[in-house]
């Protein structure tokens, strides 16, 4: 069993997953949002397969960004309110591992289900079959980057709890992920080489794993001072 003192990566990963499973509604909200908005798109544009397929890569990625943004806000705020953030910051170990553990849990609960749901959206939008695997891969890597960057914004806006400010801070930083994520799918649709943009997404993930926890650590320490 885990505790906050020895609390490394797996302790926080396990705990956040457990909390997520117990609060099922919070878990399902972003996914429902993802599905609902996807269903609105054909109604708002046109039910023509060709046009939808053209827009699909972009729309899927915009929805992934919005769904992550919607959920990342609460990554630390519950912990701040009930005092467990304080206890986490008191852990003698490096805070980077608990932070990564929490983000990994967030990705497992938001990014991964989105990724798994995406083929369904692909079918709705008549996305060519060749693009499905690139889409799944790009979403899997990209949503992890989105969670990491979003967590930086969530940590910095903790005293006032996110909202529009969180979106303002995080959206510009999401831009490269959005570009290369949708480009991966688009390249596959156009029959081009889609591994190059995917490799760049992987590079973003590597950079984000290395740097984001440092910023999050520094940001969380300010929350109490707000």
């Amino acid at each position, binding site marked *: 069993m885990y*505790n906050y003192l020895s609390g490394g990566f797996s302790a926080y990963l396990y705990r956040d997953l457990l909390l997520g499973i117990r609060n099922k509604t919070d878990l399902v909200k972003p996914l429902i949002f993802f599905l609902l908005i996807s269903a609105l798109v054909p109604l708002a544009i046109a039910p023509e397969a060709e046009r939808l397929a053209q827009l699909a890569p972009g729309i899927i990625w915009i929805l992934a960004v919005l769904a992550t943004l919607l959920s990342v806000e609460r990554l630390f705020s519950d912990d701040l309110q*009930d005092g467990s953030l304080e206890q986490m910051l008191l852990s003698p170990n490096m805070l980077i591992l608990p932070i990564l553990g929490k983000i990994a849990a967030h990705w497992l609960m938001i990014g991964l289900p989105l990724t798994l749901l995406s083929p369904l959206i692909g079918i709705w939008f008549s996305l060519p079959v060749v693009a499905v695997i690139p889409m799944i891969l790009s979403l899997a890597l990209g949503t992890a980057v989105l969670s990491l960057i979003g967590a930086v914004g969530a940590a910095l806006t903790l005293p006032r709890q996110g909202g529009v400010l969180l979106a303002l801070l995080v959206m510009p930083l999401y831009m490269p992920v959005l570009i290369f994520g949708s480009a991966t799918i688009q390249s596959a649709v156009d029959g081009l080489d889609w591994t190059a943009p995917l490799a760049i997404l992987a590079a973003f993930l590597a950079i984000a794993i290395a740097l984001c926890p440092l910023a999050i650590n520094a940001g969380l320490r300010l929350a109490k001072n707000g």
Partner: protein
Amino acid sequence: MAATNILKIDNLAFERNDTLLFEPVSLQLNSGEALHIEGANGAGKTTFFQILINLLEPSAGSIFFRGQTFSKCRYDYLSDILFIGHQSGVKATLSVEENLRWMSPDNTSAEKIALALQSVGLEHYANMPCYRLSAGQHRRVALARLVTTTASLWYLDEPFAALDKQGVAFIEGCMQQHLNSGGAMVFSSHQDLVKIEARSYRLQSYREVM
């Protein structure tokens, strides 16, 4: 057993919005001693605790733990302190036992957990999710840590808030035992303590020199 110096604070000051929050603090704490931090509301008691537990950085002054500067013994220090603040750190969706386990050190035996729950009167609630508990019971879950902890330096910020007589007696018992076994503690409270002998230190809110 000779009393050893556990904590030494030298001219500790904290600035918020370029104003000192309290008059600089200098004090010492030896093993077996309890220190009662007093001060009017807004004198910065909670902030003072947050500096002690390394959540906030002091603007000036230094803290020594067992004779070493803080930066040199960060790991030892943090693994040897227990902090219970205003917020309990209890997760509503986890059960009482799960919460206590999370907040207790490694290898705490099942018996110890059971004992801790019993001493705060929650033995029958072990598997109940915490959102079903009252506010007072919530606090008791957090305070059950006093039984399971192995830390030698306790920081308790208003431990008696929202507790009935029984609860107060329980904490006083834990504190006494901790002091007898050579531990040390810093706490704040609005209530007068009956049993515990404690030195008191009054935080003075800072007044601008004209």
